């Protein structure tokens, strides 16, 4: 019996078994940011410990950084302090810091892949749940807590229990107007927000294999929203082509030998899995969340659910969500008025996201009552988009083109919803209060669907708005 990628990478990186029964896992790449990591340096200091492998950790800032004016000191004292603490701590430890205006700053899950730091077969950690994004390259990529950030800094290892592996095969061809975001929302809807607990998800099947790396990152990004500890896709030619020539990947002959090694991590044809789910790509439609968890979604053609049609827990969940969202049962989601449109985040803030939308919005304009913002995921995305003139297209259509950061994905910077505003958002979480107002409402959808909603001023079917066949 062969092995799947998870097993191979795990076996390679296990240092030994701990007394507790857990395993000690070597971490190949450790990424840190200003929200969850400065505290870990404090914890190390308290114990008189240093950083064991400073060259295997990289830092950036993303959550708290404003997207309009990034001049220092930042207007928000606490935000400024957080950057400063991270900057000082990394400097002292000899950790490379991709500071604002370094040319490499950005959302940590955009930065790692675009620099080529993220490579197949690695174990990757970051004090951030969407670390699962990096699994797109064939990695075990885990979000961790601050105490574990401390553990990795001090020892370059983590104490872990092995996971089970569920293969999710998406077979066939996606319909026009259906994107990687719709695939991941659909999977979460099917399997639930805690369907993945205890599992690593291996995404496979022809629809996944046909995706670009950026699309694959969108899928893996939201593994965590389905409860999975991580998600990955086997590395293949698409992966290697993406990595070739990146700043931090091996070059020349070394690249070729790296590719040979990377290939060996892919799941064997006769690998076994603890579970398997098959999804037909053709069944997936443009999907929009109506509730307060990423699983509470429907296709653009459907109605909000009816709590009376279900029993027990589900009924409560639907009632709670509808009442928070101020929606009624059996209502079309299409036509829901929106106030804000947000394109960005580690889910959908990469160059291809902006390219795809720019093509569609050319010559169209955002509706009068909608505030629309486009926020590149990193300085590199910003530079590349500007080089293509995408920012002009967005601005001409009535979007604000912002500086890179997490922006309106979460409420730690000045970009926030006000009152019970409704936001059509390309981000990954529609939790209560997530976008900065305790009564704010988030509808998750693909960037293309956000653009359609922005133009119509209400949730719309991108296929109709943009005449996609």
């Amino acid at each position, binding site marked *: 019996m062969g092995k799947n990628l998870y097993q191979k990478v795990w076996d390679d990186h296990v240092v030994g078994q701990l007394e507790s*029964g857990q395993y000690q896992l070597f971490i190949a790449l450790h990424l840190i940011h200003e929200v969850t990591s400065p505290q870990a340096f404090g914890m190390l200091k308290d114990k008189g410990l240093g950083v064991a492998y400073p060259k295997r950790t990289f830092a950036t800032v993303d959550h708290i950084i404003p997207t309009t004016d990034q001049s220092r000191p930042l207007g928000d004292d606490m935000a400024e302090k957080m950057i400063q603490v991270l900057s000082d701590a990394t400097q002292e430890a000899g950790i490379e810091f991709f500071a604002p205006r370094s040319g490499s700053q950005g959302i940590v899950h955009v930065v790692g892949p675009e620099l080529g730091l993220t490579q197949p077969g690695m174990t990757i950690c970051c004090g951030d749940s969407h670390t699962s994004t990096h699994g797109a390259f064939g990695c075990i990529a885990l979000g961790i807590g601050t105490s574990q950030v401390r553990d990795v800094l001090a020892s370059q290892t983590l104490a872990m229990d092995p996971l089970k592996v569920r293969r999710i095969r998406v077979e066939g061809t996606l319909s026009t107007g259906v994107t990687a975001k719709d695939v991941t929302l659909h999977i979460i809807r099917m399997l639930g927000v805690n369907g993945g607990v205890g599992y690593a998800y291996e995404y496979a099947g022809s629809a996944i294999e046909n995706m670009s790396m950026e699309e694959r990152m969108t899928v893996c990004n939201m593994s965590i929203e389905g409860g999975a500890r991580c998600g990955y896709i086997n590395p293949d030619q698409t992966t290697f082509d993406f990595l070739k020539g990146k700043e931090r990947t091996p070059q020349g002959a070394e690249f070729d030998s790296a590719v040979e090694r990377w290939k060996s991590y892919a799941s064997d044809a006769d690998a076994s899995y603890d579970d398997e789910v098959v999804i037909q790509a053709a069944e997936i439609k443009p999907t929009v969340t109506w509730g307060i968890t990423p699983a509470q979604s429907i296709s653009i053609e459907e109605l909000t659910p009816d709590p009376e049609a279900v029993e027990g827990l589900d009924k409560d*969940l639907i009632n709670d969500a509808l009442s928070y969202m101020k929606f009624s049962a059996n209502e079309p989601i299409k036509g829901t008025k929106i106030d804000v449109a947000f394109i960005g985040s580690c889910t959908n803030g990469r160059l291809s996201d902006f390219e795809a939308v720019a093509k569609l919005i050319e010559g169209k304009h955002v509706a009068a009552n909608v505030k629309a913002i486009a926020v590149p995921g990193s300085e590199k995305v910003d530079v590349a988009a500007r080089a293509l003139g995408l920012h002009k297209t967005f601005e001409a259509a009535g979007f604000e083109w912002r500086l890179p950061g997490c922006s309106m994905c979460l409420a730690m910077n000045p970009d926030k919803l006000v009152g019970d505003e409704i936001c059509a958002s390309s981000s990954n979480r529609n939790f*209560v209060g997530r976008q900065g107002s305790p009564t704010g409402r988030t509808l998750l959808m693909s960037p293309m669907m956000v653009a359609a909603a922005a133009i119509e001023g209400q949730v719309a079917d991108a296929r109709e708005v943009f005449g996609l066949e």
Partner: protein
Amino acid sequence: MTGMKIEKISGKGVYVAGNDIDTDRIIPARFLKCVTFDELGPALFYDERFDTDDNSKHHVLDKSEHRGAQVLISDANFGCGSSREHAPQAIQKFGFKAVIAESFAEIFHGNCTTLGIPCVMMEKADRELIAEIIASDADTDMIVDIEGLKVICGNHVFNVKMKDSAREAFLAASYDPLDTLLVARSAVEETAKRLGYA
């Protein structure tokens, strides 16, 4: 700091009802602006407890009879969402020593364990009974028995589940793994060399 053994926790309980209570609700993002975790206690469940003008919404946590409770009881998939350790830190700093729920999100569970907060899984009917008992007498003593996998509430004894590795770690005082991770320094070095990461 390998901590003390954690075998039993006793104290009052408080029931915060709700499924899928995510870490954004446990600690809203604006409170993540900090460089230490020390001040997080008062921010626990802030937006559930206070309105936008900081007026109390008379949340169950703020009822005088529940002051000083040490056991937090909730429902399914507690702690889902972000990996922010700020959530268990806030729970701990607020004064809770154990959490009982139907189930827990994985990263949250791991964070709690490292901090020495046992996460205990209990059936819905049992939690409902405990909720009733507490509602009629908030001072009812509860004991969370990690060793015996039981929760005692008043005259009732409930069987509960815990993740084995976590339970063993509490009993062996090894829930904070850092010291053990540092022991294998040379094996770590070898692994790094073998994989070309040195």
